[in-house]
């Protein structure tokens, strides 16, 4: 039909965890360029998105920061059956914007008190999967009690990153994807925590409305090209 070109393109509303927002923006732009669909992104905390979805927020797909909230939505019958899948696995790093501040033996230098710092930032372990992972690492290395008076807690991983980037905290456990996003001149010092030190940070997505558009978007996200892109952003993929 001659005027079908002028019809507004179909839209999908995507709720995305703040830690994945920049990666999702990249994915969404590529999707928009290769289809006629438009992707509207709402980034925010997974706890808030969960509450919003339970109270009728008009999202079509939800990319969470963990597996717990998607599982709960599944149990509560809020999702399209069988749509829950892992889209990324987060990687934890200990980071400081000051280069040469530390290297791979950073934890033993903290244990022996050789590394001087006033504050270490972590995400709140009760709220954020990266915070939970950071707590596990500190517990495993016997540092949790020793450092408890010096820990500041961000409500999410982005805030934790800001604490360290503004150098109000001298170092902190953040997402590898965040360190990858800063320009190489300000990358500073970072230590990629071995994945055996913490439970994998599994980020899952669920589909809330089943349409052609959501189906093709999910297919797009699972494609080889996009999985490669997700890895380039500093995540592992299943």
């Amino acid at each position, binding site marked *: 039909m001659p005027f079908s070109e002028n019809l507004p393109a179909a839209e999908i509303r995507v709720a995305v965890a703040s830690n994945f927002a920049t990666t999702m923006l990249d994915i969404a732009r590529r999707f928009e360029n290769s289809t006629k669909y438009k992707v509207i992104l709402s980034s925010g905390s997974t706890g808030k998105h969960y509450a919003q979805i339970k109270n009728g927020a008009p999202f079509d797909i939800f990319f969470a920061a963990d597996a717990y909230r998607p599982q*709960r939505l599944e149990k509560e019958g809020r999702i399209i059956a069988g749509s829950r899948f892992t889209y990324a696995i987060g990687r934890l790093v200990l980071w400081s914007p000051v280069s040469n501040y530390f290297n791979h033996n950073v934890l033993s230098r903290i244990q022996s008190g050789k590394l001087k710092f006033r504050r270490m930032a972590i995400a709140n372990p*009760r709220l954020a999967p990266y915070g939970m992972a950071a707590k596990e690492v500190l517990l495993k290395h016997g540092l949790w009690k020793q450092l408890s008076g010096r820990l*500041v*807690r961000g*409500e999410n991983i982005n805030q934790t990153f800001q*604490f360290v980037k*503004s*150098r*109000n905290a001298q170092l902190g456990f953040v997402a590898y994807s965040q360190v990858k996003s800063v320009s190489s001149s300000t990358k500073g010092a970072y230590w990629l925590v071995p994945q055996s030190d913490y439970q994998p940070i599994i980020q899952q997505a669920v589909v809330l409305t089943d349409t052609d558009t959501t189906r093709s978007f999910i297919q797009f996200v699972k494609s080889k090209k996009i999985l490669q892109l997700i890895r380039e952003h500093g995540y592992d993929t299943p």
Partner: protein
Amino acid sequence: MFNEADLTALFITVKLAVITTIILLVMGTPVAWWLAKSRWRFKFIFEAIVALPLVLPPTVLGFYLLVALGPDGPIGSTMGFLGAEPLAFTFTGLVIGSVIYSMPFVIQPLQNAFAAIGQRPLDVAATLGASPLDRFFTVAIPLARPGFFTAAVLGFAHTIGEFGVVLMIGGNIPGETQVVSIAIYDHVESLEYANAHWLSATLMLLAFVLLIAVYAVNRKLTYKSGYGL
């Protein structure tokens, strides 16, 4: 119902609001007086500065405070130069943030109250031989009492409900910077809705009782001294 951290958070919140309100009343009064009385043609610039904290979303204001308090920021680098302890993630840091955040809510009612008095009572007092300081303390301040009440109530309530600024510069340290709004947020985010509801209800009830008391006292005083609001 409440855990210990919730009660500590309640205490810290009230302490923060009381200290912030007192500081703002003491520091805001001369500023409001000057704004009400000055005829300087560029006064409006300062009126705009006082209103600025209303414009920025609290988390954005908090973000810039965090940057300013950092070792590269203007406040943080000065503190470092003076050899003082950094202010981010401390109760003192929260007080500074709250004073900025609640400033318009205290200064603007005071400015309006001073302006509403007009020049006449002050001129009369002057002809009776009252010095400028006498006029300020025995004429202007008593006449502006309704304005002081409004300023104190708004400053206090606004600080109690503060969230974005403390979220950014507090670091959520129990017993130091974890206020009630953050504790409620934590409960909501970790899906502990029952705890969140209890804490919110307590906060609302506490604020309600306090505001009722303040308004009742204000009414009594206003009635006694014969000025209407």
